[in-house]
Structure formats: structure tokens, C-alpha cells
């Protein structure tokens, strides 16, 4: 695979301008070799940055703090054994449970699809759970998530019950969108999952708009609002015009958004390297005036550390961040994809870096929980998923009358008057026959 030759480094675009660059250069001028980065056994301990010779962004605002910079600061300050760990036991178990839920759910989706219970386009997230869990578990309920068609696990991580997602996939009326959306269009107003979009790149402006709303609420409506939006999308989307338009506007207006690129190296059968002039997507952030960070997306703890900083930046009003997560999908693009173009050796390589196995290993090695506790979680998740399938199976299909519902929020088309009621119900309603 061609990309094995390049190193993956976390880049600090402001290294030159930072006053700490002198001490940093001693510590960090180590370029990671491929073998030490990939397949690395120790998780979450190596976040190294490299001073590049030329940083054209150095003249840009010194107030923008690069993500890895601050994270490294924290690491330098942390002392010995206990505080060296990145997560507490509770956090570890939450992360583990979320990732296992994502994996078990998607595996069950595959089974159900081949049994004919699910149909159409179904895109599974196996292998990428670290990105979803790493980011979304840091959010509040009011924060928004916008995703693509590979959205089941984003919805689950955000809090949409597994039952509702499974029913939606079966096309039943108890689904989160009453069966009207489907696999690619998971919406939940309650949990602020703003979709599920089939067109790649479509979700990015929508996410930027939700971030615009947060900022507007704070500045114009004077509400106490620090809600953050996360936009998830893939490597293929990063060549699309809307992506660049939104990077520009988000940085221009300092919107509270994090652009999370799930770079799984493949857009259906198009390799990222064949499609992109410069495959290092994180570099596109600094070009627009925001930090660009690259992180190992198969390691949930690393993702979480970067996410803490990026989300924190957005919440504080410091503006957007572009985070490129190097990850991999274990299955094909969709369940209809024969997945012939990917090299089996590449797949095998990434299979050894399964994020769930890695987290399990970390938890056990650092004695955060026992094997029995993890097994109990796995069993619980199995039951949740089985229950969701049963629930979905037993749920009714939508009634025929549901076909024409929900086209409009205000179907009679007369609009809502200033008193909040449908205008056509107001007896003094003007019919436009004003005498002229």
C-alpha cells in the first residue's frame, strides 16, 4: 500500500511563532517511523509534534493555539502513575460500552440485511468506532452532531436508543423518523442529531449553520449558549467544494464547530491517494486559518484527547478546528459493495489495530477494570441489541395514512399568524381582497 511510506505526524502549524518553540525543539524533533506509529502497543502516550522548517501560517493570529501544543503541555505537567492514565475507570467503561454497542449493532445490521429485514443502502461503521466514541461522548445533549450516510453509530453514541435506530432501519413506524428516513437519514431533535445526509458534503454546511445558530444565540439573542457542533465526514468529501466553502466561513466567523474527517482511505472503490492531490487533509485547516490536527483514529484515547481540546476550543469561542482521524472500515462501503479493490494485507493490518481490542487491552493492563466487568458489558450490549431487533420485528409498519404526513409543518399553507395559531383559523383573516 502506497501510503505506508509516509509518516503520520501530528502537526503544530504554529510551532515557529510560539514562544515555547525553543524548549519544544529539544523534546519533539523526533519523526515517528511507520512501525512505531502503527501497531503501537502503548496507547495514548505518544503525542509528538515536529517543528517544520517553514510554517507559512506562523504570521497568522498567535491567539490560535494548536491542539497538540496544549495537549503536550498537559502531558509534560502530569506526574506519576495514577494521573498518567488518560481516563478514569468510569470513563473507560463508558467508552468501552459505547464502542461495543456500535460494533455489535453494526454486526447485527449486517445479519438482518442478509436476512432481508433491512433493505436499500446500508453503510456500516465497523472499525471506526473510536472516532465516534472519542468525540461524541464528550458532548452535552444540546450539542449537535451532523453526519453522513454512515450515521448509525453517531446516532447511537449521541444517545438515540438502539431500539429506535433498529426500527428505523427496518422501516417500522416506531423508528426515530417513523420509518420515513431510513438508514441514511437518522434525525433526532431530542438528541440533536441533525442528520444523516446521503449527499457527501451536504452535512458540512448544515453543521456550520447549526454552529452559526449557537453563535447567534450567544451574540444576538444574548442567551447563555456554548453549544458546539460536530461535523463528521470522510476523506472523499474533502475534495468537494462545500467543504472548502465551509472551512472558509467557519474560520471567518469563528464558529463553534469541529470538522472531523474520518479518513478511512477509501471512497467506495476510489483510493484517497488516487483522488487527492495532497492526501494530508489536516493541512487544509491552516490554509483557512484554523488548526489542522492529525490523529490516530484507531485509538480512542488519542482521539479523545484531541477531541477534548478541539471541543474546548469551540466552546470557549476560539473558533473551528479540523481534525483528521486516520481510521479504517472493516467492511465494504455498503452492504452491497463486494469490496474487491482493497488489498487483503491492508485489511489484515488494520484488523490488528481494532480499537475495541486496543481499549480492552489498555483497561486490563492498567487495571482499571477486570475481565469479568468487561465481559459483563459485552453481554449487556448483546442483550440490548437482541432486544432492539425483537422490538423492531414486532413493531408495526407505518399506516397508509402516514404517506402524506409530515410534508409540511404547516400543511394548509396559510402560514402561522403573529398570535402563533394557524392563520386560516383566525376569523378576522384577510383574504387579500384589500380594496384598492
Amino acid at each position: 500500500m502506497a501510503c505506508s511510506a509516509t509518516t503520520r505526524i501530528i502537526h503544530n502549524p504554529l510551532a515557529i511563532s510560539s514562544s515555547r518553540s525553543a524548549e519544544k525543539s529539544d523534546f519533539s524533533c523526533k519523526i515517528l517511523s511507520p512501525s512505531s506509529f502503527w501497531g503501537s502497543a502503548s496507547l495514548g502516550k505518544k503525542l509528538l509534534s515536529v517543528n517544520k522548517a517553514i510554517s507559512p501560517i506562523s504570521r497568522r493570529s498567535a491567539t490560535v493555539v494548536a491542539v497538540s501544543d496544549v495537549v503536550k503541555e498537559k502531558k509534560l505537567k502530569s506526574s506519576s502513575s495514577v494521573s498518567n492514565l488518560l481516563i478514569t475507570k468510569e470513563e473507560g467503561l463508558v467508552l468501552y460500552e459505547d464502542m461495543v454497542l456500535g460494533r455489535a449493532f453494526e454486526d447485527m445490521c449486517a445479519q438482518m440485511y442478509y436476512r432481508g429485514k433491512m433493505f436499500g443502502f446500508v453503510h456500516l461503521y465497523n472499525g471506526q468506532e473510536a472516532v465516534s466514541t472519542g468525540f461524541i461522548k464528550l458532548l452535552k445533549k444540546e450539542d449537535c452532531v451532523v453526519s453522513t450516510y454512515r450515521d448509525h453509530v453517531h446516532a447511537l453514541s449521541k444517545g438515540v436508543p438502539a431500539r429506535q435506530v433498529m426500527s428505523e432501519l427496518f422501516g417500522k413506524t416506531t423508528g426515530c423518523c417513523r420509518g420515513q428516513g431510513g438508514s441514511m437519514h437518522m434525525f433526532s431533535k431530542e438528541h440533536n442529531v441533525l442528520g444523516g445526509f446521503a449527499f457527501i458534503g451536504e452535512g458540512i454546511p448544515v453543521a456550520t449553520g447549526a454552529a452559526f445558530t449557537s453563535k447567534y444565540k450567544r451574540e444576538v439573542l444574548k442567551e447563555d449558549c456554548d453549544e458546539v457542533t460536530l461535523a463528521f465526514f470522510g476523506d472523499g468529501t474533502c475534495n468537494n467544494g462545500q467543504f472548502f466553502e465551509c472551512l472558509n466561513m467557519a474560520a471567518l466567523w469563528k464558529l463553534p464547530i469541529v470538522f472531523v474527517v474520518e479518513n478511512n482511505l477509501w471512497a467506495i472503490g476510489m483510493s484517497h491517494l488516487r483522488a487527492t492531490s495532497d492526501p494530508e487533509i489536516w493541512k487544509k485547516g491552516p490554509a483557512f486559518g484554523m488548526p489542522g490536527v492529525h490523529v490516530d483514529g484507531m485509538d480512542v484515547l488519542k482521539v479523545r484527547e484531541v477531541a477534548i481540546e478541539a471541543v474546548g476550543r469551540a466552546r470557549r469561542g476560539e473558533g473551528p478546528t479540523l481534525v483528521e482521524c486516520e481510521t479504517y472500515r472493516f467492511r465494504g462501503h455498503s452492504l452491497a459493495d463486494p469490496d474487491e479493490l482493497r488489498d487483503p494485507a491492508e485489511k489484515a493490518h488494520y484488523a490488528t489495530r481494532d480499537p475495541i481490542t486496543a481499549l480492552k487491552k489498555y483497561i486490563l493492563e492498567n487495571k482499571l477494570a477486570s475481565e469479568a466487568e468487561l465481559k459483563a458489558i459485552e453481554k449487556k450490549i448483546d442483550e440490548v441489541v437482541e432486544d432492539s431487533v425483537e422490538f423492531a420485528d414486532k413493531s408495526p409498519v407505518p399506516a397508509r395514512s402516514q404517506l402524506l404526513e409530515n410534508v409540511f409543518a404547516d400543511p394548509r399553507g396559510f402560514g402561522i399568524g403573529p398570535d402563533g395559531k394557524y392563520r386560516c383559523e383566525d376569523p378576522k383573516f384577510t383574504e387579500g381582497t384589500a380594496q384598492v
Partner: protein
Amino acid sequence: MWGIMRQRAACKAYHALNLEQGIRAIALRAFSSSAKQMTVRDALNSALDEEMSADPKVFIMGEEVGEYQGAYKISKGLLDKYGPERVVDTPITEAGFAGIGVGAAYYGLRPVIEFMTFNFSMQAIDHIINSAAKSNYMSAGQISVPIVFRGPNGAAAGVGAQHSQCYAAWYGAIPGLKVLAPYSSEDARGLLKAAIRDPDPVVFLENELLYGESFPISDEVLDSSFSLPIGKAKIEREGKDVTITAFSKMVGYALQAADILAKEGINAEVINLRTIRPLDRSTINSSVRKTNRLVTVEEGFPQHGVGAEICATVVEDSFEYLDAPVERIAGADVPMPYAANLERMAVPQVEDIVRAAKRACYRSR
């Protein structure tokens, strides 16, 4: 970039300003008349102004809406009044800012997105249709999109093929969108206010050549709570011999044609559609049942146009009442030419409507 918001005190003085605006409109008239006159441009501006002052969640976004005072001066004065957070100048990114508007609407605001012309909306059409129009349905009612996409539509004068297309038929085909096409100042004010208050995505098709035209306007229309119903057509002129349906600029032409026809003894009924979607089928059908003849007029391309839909609906519902085939007047089936004489031939003129009406009445030679 994000300045300080204007003091609310300035906005409270608004209601006085409203009347002042109406009176100013009178004062500007060279001739004195008892009816007030208002241009479509002022009507739109006042509607935007009133809705923005009534609801702080309404904001305007588009190219040149702020410091340039609007590409066609529709948003004149609004930047000074409401500040740059609420009148947002964007880079040239139709797909981007239309999508941002949709996302803002998903999450609770009420954006008014201006396209410099609706031709540019084709760059953003994915967002208008896929993420705005279809969302209420896809999310089963959870997420409604109270957004307005507005801008000039249709042919202007000598602007060439890429700036002259009429989009009424395209947007009119999409379930989940409401499509409005005002004609007079009263229409412009009432429909824009209704559109901004509406919880669904609305495509508001204005016309550049109508911006400068002034129409008489009553006190009722000047009231800040005035609005018109979406989905209801207006009968501009009652008649009994032939029904002529039109929208936007063509209403003016149809009224002129009706005057000419009246001299020849044909009493035409002119319907101003006002709303393309949902189409007011009942008004059209009851008019056809009265007159028994129909002429549809539109500026856009003929195939799959608004006239085609009206013809189909009348044939479905009122076939027995038709005494003559439905006559369809539309723009020529060519991209808009530039030369002035060719352009005149590519757009319906009053004579075309008169001829068609006579054909429908079996009076043509």
C-alpha cells in the same frame, strides 16, 4: 466582523417609521392622489424590516445584502438598523451559505437567504431540495425548516441566457417546498411576511423588472401584521368569457391584454396565482367552470412548465366544462438570446396573450 448590535431603542421607534415610510411613499409621488403608492422594492424592504424587528431570530444572509445595501437594494438600510450579525454578507458560496441557512433553521433560527438571482440557486439546489424541502418528511416532523430563499427570478433586460431562467416550474415540483411568486406591492409585502412566518421552507420568486414599479396600496396593507395566505390565488379582474392565469410579471401583461380584449367584446378573467406551490387548484377550476375557456401565461420554458400543470389539473377536474382546448403561453423553447429583438420574441408579449385568448374564444381569423 461581528460588531455591536444596535440598541433596541432604535427598533422601538419602528412603528412610527412604518407610517412615515408610507407617507414618504406618497410624498415621493409627483402627482397627488388619494391612494398611496408603493414600489415593490419598498414593499419588500418594509416587510423584511418589520419581520426582523418583530422576531430577533430572523436574519438575512446573502451576497451584498449588507454594506452594498442589497444587490437590487432590497435590503437597503437594514445593516445600519440591525447590525452585521443579523444582516450577514457572505463570500461567493451559494452552496455553503444556503446550507448554513438550512443548518441554522434546523437548530432554531429563521433565516432569509438571498440569492442574487435564482439562476445562482442552481449552485445551492441540493440544499434547497435535499436538506430543506425534504427534511420535515425524512425526520417525520421532528425538524422543520423555517427558511426563506428569495431573490429575483426570470428574465430581466438583456442579461443573456445564464441570467434569465425562470425556476417556478422546477421548484414547484418539489413536495415540501412552498413556492411564491408575488406581482404587486401588496403581494410582495403580504407574501414575504407570510413566508418569513411560515414554518416550512419557502422559495420566494421575485422579479427584477417589477422592483421599480409602483402600485396603489391601502392602509390595511401597510399595517405591520398584514400578511397574505399562502396557497390562495387572487382574481385580479373578474370576467366571464375566458380565464387567463399568470404569475409575477405576466400578471401585468395579462391585465393589459384583458383591457385590449374588452374592447373587442371579450370579457377576460385574470387570475394572479401568487402561489405556485401549493397551487390554488380550486380557484382556477371554479373560474374555468364559470368561463369555460383557459389561457395560461408564464415566462419560463414551456415543457413541464407551470402552464402544463394547470392544464392537467383543469382537464382532470373540469373537463366537461371546457369549451375549447387550453391555450398555453410560455417563453420560447430556447435559452434566452441577448439581442433585444430576439429577446422580445423569446418572452411572451401582450399581443401573444391577446391572440391566444381569441383562439380560445374561436375568434381568431
